[in-house]
């Protein structure tokens, strides 16, 4: 028989009292006991980054984190990003640039990017790549994700002209067409 543990988890700023099989990971308990299915799984072996959540502000692979060790820690998931019905700048930029295609790696990407912006409000493209390098995406080729994080960082800094370059939206000007 399974052993069960009872714990109070602080998830997205609210305390949740949960009972779960002691060997279950944070990923499983978030999805199954807490009903927060926004956090996805791609391997359950710590290889893909899809299940990234923030624990005390740090990106953590929830598939490798034991829930039993999470009591008293602050857990943030994609469900906590919005402010009311307002999207977080990262969410808005991901949606607008197609940085979410199938959208499956997106929650993990958003959380890893949030942790980066909390440390560095003006990251270079290279810094964004390094911060997100543990998160795999099979759809986008990564560029739209980098561009979305750059845009969101600009918005978060309050820059009025923050926004993607024309070629991000329309492609490069075709040589010889002079546009």
């Amino acid at each position: 028989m399974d052993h069960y543990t009872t714990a109070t988890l602080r998830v997205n700023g609210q305390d949740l009292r949960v009972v779960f099989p002691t060997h279950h990971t944070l990923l499983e308990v978030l999805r199954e006991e807490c009903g927060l299915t926004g956090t996805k799984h791609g391997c359950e072996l710590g290889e893909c980054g899809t299940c990234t959540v923030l624990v005390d502000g740090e990106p953590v692979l929830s598939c490798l984190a034991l829930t039993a060790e999470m009591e008293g820690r602050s857990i943030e998931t994609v469900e906590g990003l919005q402010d009311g019905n307002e999207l977080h700048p990262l969410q808005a930029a991901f949606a607008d640039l197609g940085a979410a295609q199938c959208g499956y790696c997106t929650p993990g990407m958003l959380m890893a990017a949030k942790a980066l912006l909390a440390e560095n409000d003006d990251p270079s493209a290279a810094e964004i790549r390094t911060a997100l390098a543990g998160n795999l995406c099979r759809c986008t080729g990564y560029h739209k994700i980098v561009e979305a994080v750059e845009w969101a960082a600009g918005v978060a800094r309050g820059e009025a002209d923050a926004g993607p370059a024309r070629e991000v939206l329309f492609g490069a000007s075709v040589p010889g067409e002079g546009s």
Partner: protein
Amino acid sequence: MTPPRSGQVIAPDQAPPASAPGSTQEDDLRVVGTPFRRVDGWAKVTGQTRFADDLTFPRMVHMRLVRSTLPHAFIRGIDTSKAEEMPGVVGVLTGKDMPEPFGVLPVSQDEHALCLEKVRFVGDPVVAVAALTEDQAADACSAVTIEYEPLATISSVDEAIETSEPLIHDYGDEGNLHKKISLQFGAVDDGFAQADEIFEDVMFYEGSTHLPMEQHAAVAVPEGGGRITLYTSTQTPHYVHKVLATVLGMPASRVRVIACSVGGGFGGKSDIFSHEIVAAKMALVTGRPVKICLNREEVFYCHRGRHPVLMHLRTGFTKDGAMVAQHLKTALDGGAYGSYGVASTYYTGALQTVTYGLPRYRFDSIRAFTNKPPCGPKRGHATVQPRFALEVHLDKAAQRLGIDPADLRLNNLLPPDSITANYLKVGTIGLGACIQAVVDGSGWRERFQSLPHGRGLGLACGSYLTGAGLPIHWNHLPQSAVQLKLDRMGTVAAYCGEAEIGQGSDSVLAACVAEVLGIGLDDVLLCVGDTGLTPVDLGSYSSRVTLMVGRAAIQAAERARDRLAEAVAEKLDVPADRLVFAESRVFDSGNPENGMPFAEAVQRAEEKFGALATTGSYAPPRAPGRYRGSGVGPSPTYSYSASVIEVEVDPETGLYRVEHVWIAHDIGRAINPVLTIGQVEGSVYMGLGEAMMEEQVFRRLPKNRSNALVHKVPSMLEYKSPTFHEMPPVTTYLIEDPDPEGPFGAKEVGQGPLLPIMPALANAIFDAVGVRIDQVPIGPHMIRKAVEDKAAGGDGRYGPKAFPDIDFGVPLMVPTPDEGGDGRATNSEEAGVRKGSGTMADGVRKDSKP
């Protein structure tokens, strides 16, 4: 700069009256062509999108599968008695519970939901167990015992050719060869006789898998009245529907398949999978909802990915680089089941003719059964391998003939509106403009062959279908359909069987409807991918959705607009052809003040006609080929791409780094440019993965440990794929020349831009260090060996040495259009065209069942 939000409509700005919907007049377009937020974007960034594994139902139980540990064996006994007694277990199924065979192609009905007498690869599913929790189901699976009698294992095409016994399947063209093809278009020998130069190459393209981030998942829900609903992660709900009804032995009208949002497809979720059928059966047996989510290892076993293909290419050229004849031979390692393999086999030859003039062409191919996970369609479906061979082959020819590789291609472009030697009808061709864009953008003219040793540029091209011309199940039915419901509240609901797999098909559907009716994207409510509620669309494969769904949506919206216009014209007392639909209003183009809100227009039409619903549908034009095999390759239109890749190679170690990719894609018209670029960049990424590192490969366990042929790397850590760090900068050019077949002129973009990437990299490595790597993925050790070989006076090449000696028999002879052919073969009987091993062109057939 902020892109418009979905629903935001650009002001008509005194626009002229909207001409025919689907018009390609740029001035008329308000939604199409703008980089709007994808309509499913909000849900995807908030965690609200429901993927199959996110669903729960009251009384739901969980299922796991017991999979074969041997690559080829008879099943001599299955003991599930202990498992049935385990805590929480509610159901156990074996093959005999679902004996009806199935397969996605009518000609390859060779799978069973759970293996009956034999297992054919490590990972083949044998037993299913359902329990109250997933942990309990897994524990019970461990208590199942299966007794096997091992059989000799076939691990490669060569072994399949040599080994006629034991048969992996008791059907197929010859021994363990699933399919054998020989086609000849025109007087190929005469062509070679006229050639100034004849070049030959042997190339190999390793298999790779889709590696979607989402593991396959499905939930089957028994409903009252003998109905069953399957929620599943699929690209092709219609095909899942057909197979479920067949295997479950139920009327198709009692079976409903709902395609959930797919967390990455790339072709890997376009087949029908064992777990989908077994979940449905388990739900019917237990009377409870049943969920299964595969683990990552199982996803590698599902596979249906890129076929490993060995290729032999022989081409006759004139001195100025024109091709006069070509003979292509391909050998595909198919894995353990048919899947889409017959189509894949034809696709390794079909599209060689659509880029450059090729007056005479012969194509021979085999597909072998081997004891590995079945191969199938992956992005670019089996056209990718021969494209790699052709584009590297052309690079070598250009070098030997002393012609710039860009000029060799530009000088020999297939003219628009051609019928090729193999009877493909090609419409618009933007390839010349694509080549020009990447040549200019990369500084090719100044930099090719002029960079320092170790740095190089390579160029290659590609083309892909915008939707397969023929359906898998031969019929005269529409291949896509859209129904619109308009009501007095102004809501427009669009119903369509299409499956959103991340490529943006929902956004295309909404944009086409919104554009024609002059309403916002957010005014269009979508109901998609539900075989119970939506009209059939064949699914997200062959890059068919934008064109076919788009055309059906435009037709449905046009019909709705005509109805509204008739009623509004009466009310406003203006001619219907003067009405403009824009900004969620209907108004007189001569007097924009004279109009009404869209919702009121619907009310006027509802008063006049009663409840409003319209339909639209699309079927591709009939292709000119009439020979056996001509069903694979036709398309309403073809997209074109060209790429230049810049690479830095360390000749000492062979380590290399892609510095930049320039890519131009002939999109016809971008329905949404930012999403189009996303498809291009994603294709470049996936192409680089295949070119640089991705390989689905196998090894034998030691003899004392069963000697089984096992997957070498069934984990994401070991199956290497590019991360943020491996992805180079990409410059994307969208070449927009609207195609008359496409919705608003649009062509496909999801697959085509992948094709030039692999050969462009191989060609760039040659420019950098002067060695030829004739296979992918290209490992540093290959470059290192080729450099050593060259230094020792060799030819500086790394790649396969020979193509196996295969008797392809008498080819099916098809005179070309230039020779006065009518698309038919002249020697069907002599060529031994067999009954019952047909192609998709030949109607529904069933092979001998295993």
